[in-house]
């Protein structure tokens, strides 16, 4: 099940390989973020060196697939032909408080006209497209109740 209509550019690993481990893990349903083996800091998107201690000893480390909504936007005007009949859709900027507050972009699944609350907890949903050429996986988000 795809949140957005098909036809947008599909993500592939950067030719220089920088984010390849992230996409490979996502295909396995594992969420990873980049972490410095030298100083322990997290960073996203990926960099070649740690922005804090400048070490190049970096790893993609699996994290709990949970975050909270840092900001969001409801898009109405399509700027790509694939989205011509999409209608409104939600993009969220998800923050990882336990990973130095780094952030990731995704869609918020569910009713595109739902009320969105900044600060609300969300969990990752892996949107796999194994039969596409090339195959790819998107990391999407859905609201969840801490007390449920």
């Amino acid at each position, binding site marked *: 099940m795809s949140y957005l209509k098909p036809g947008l550019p*599909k993500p592939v690993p950067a030719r220089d390989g920088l984010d390849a481990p992230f996409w490979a893990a996502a295909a396995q349903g594992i969420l990873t973020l980049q972490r410095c083996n030298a100083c322990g800091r997290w960073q996203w998107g990926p960099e070649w060196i740690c922005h804090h201690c400048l070490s190049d000893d970096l790893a993609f480390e699996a994290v709990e697939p949970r975050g909270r909504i840092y900001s969001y936007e409801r898009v109405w005007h399509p700027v790509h032909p694939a989205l011509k009949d999409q209608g409104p859709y939600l993009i969220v900027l998800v923050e990882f408080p336990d990973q130095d507050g780094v952030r990731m972009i995704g869609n918020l699944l569910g009713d595109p006209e739902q009320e969105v609350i900044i600060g609300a907890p969300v969990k990752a949903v892996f949107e796999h497209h194994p039969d596409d050429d090339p195959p790819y996986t998107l990391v999407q988000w859905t609201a969840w109740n801490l007390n449920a």
Partner: protein
Amino acid sequence: MQRSLRGRAAVIGIGETPYYKRGEAPEPEFKLALSAIVAACEDAGISPKRLDGFASYSNDRSDPSRLAAALGIDELRFANMQWGGGGGGGSAAIANAAAAIASGMAECVVVFRALAQGQFGRFGQGPRRNVIAGEMAHAVPYGLMSPAQMFAMKVKRFMHEHGVEQAALRSIALACYHHAQNNPRAVMNGRPLTEEKYDASRWIVEPFHLFDCCLENDGAAAMVLVSAERAAEAEHAPCYLLGAAAGSHHRAGAPVHNAPDYATSAFKTIAPRLYAMAGVGPGDVDVLQSYENFTGGVLMSIVEHGFCEADGCNEFFVKENLVAPGGTLPLNTSGGNLAECYMHGLGLNIEAVRQVRGVSTSQVPGVEVSMVVSGPMVTPVSSCIFGSGATL
């Protein structure tokens, strides 16, 4: 020796082509650039052959060596491009020109920007290809691909943090359209905007309605700078550069929306340097041109340049405060990028010079300090302050 640009260089000529709807320029981009440069030199009362430097930004396609050849100038001494996209480099290009003059690298530098989207394709359109890699791979497949979509995320967060209401953004659009009605060059002249029309306009991406978004236009703009000494002999009363600053804060360019200080126009570290060099404060500014890619960027720019508290936006951003001649802070008096023309903001710098000369179509009386903010929310950004002779 004091390390400052204050009063070292001045604008002596300004020039623009007519402004067209995007894709409708009757001439190619390079010809538009030449026309604006020649017009600026005519306004300055100098021959274009006396130019010896070019400064631009946002990867302008009109190459200085080709311009120099086409204009037949004697010797090219300075060919400068400010890095970065959008309009963030507008005031920086002026600063770079002034720095070249102050340091003796060049004598007479033209700052220019030319755009013909019919010839070179449109802004704001998503990439049309099967796959995407790199930083964009972490945004485009989720439907995040236009400038409006990149910046709405910041503005939404700022509005959340400070309780800013939609009406504050609306007031900015209303002020720009109000001024465009006085400006016959403005693309939106004759098309006034009301609160009702704004409210009824479609969403592009929340929190931006159609009227919160800049135009896209074809045309070119240019301004000629020389040293303060040479400016004293110029045809027009010189408009001095009092200060300029460019850059961005810590990791503003962190990928995938990861700037630690996120909900910002990127001017928090620039504004103090700007005012320190200019020797003025926000209370001294008579009129402001603030780059509208989107109204939310203007709002944050005005806060970060100290005109208004972040928590006071709903009170400050009312139309009456923002219109000439009597508003507290007359804003975008030509109509700006929303309603005059989107020339990547160089039109705003030209309007700031007009205000110092006293020839704006929405003139603020007795302008001595005239300020420009270029390209909020991108990195690097820049801003500058012009002054009359009385400010030196």
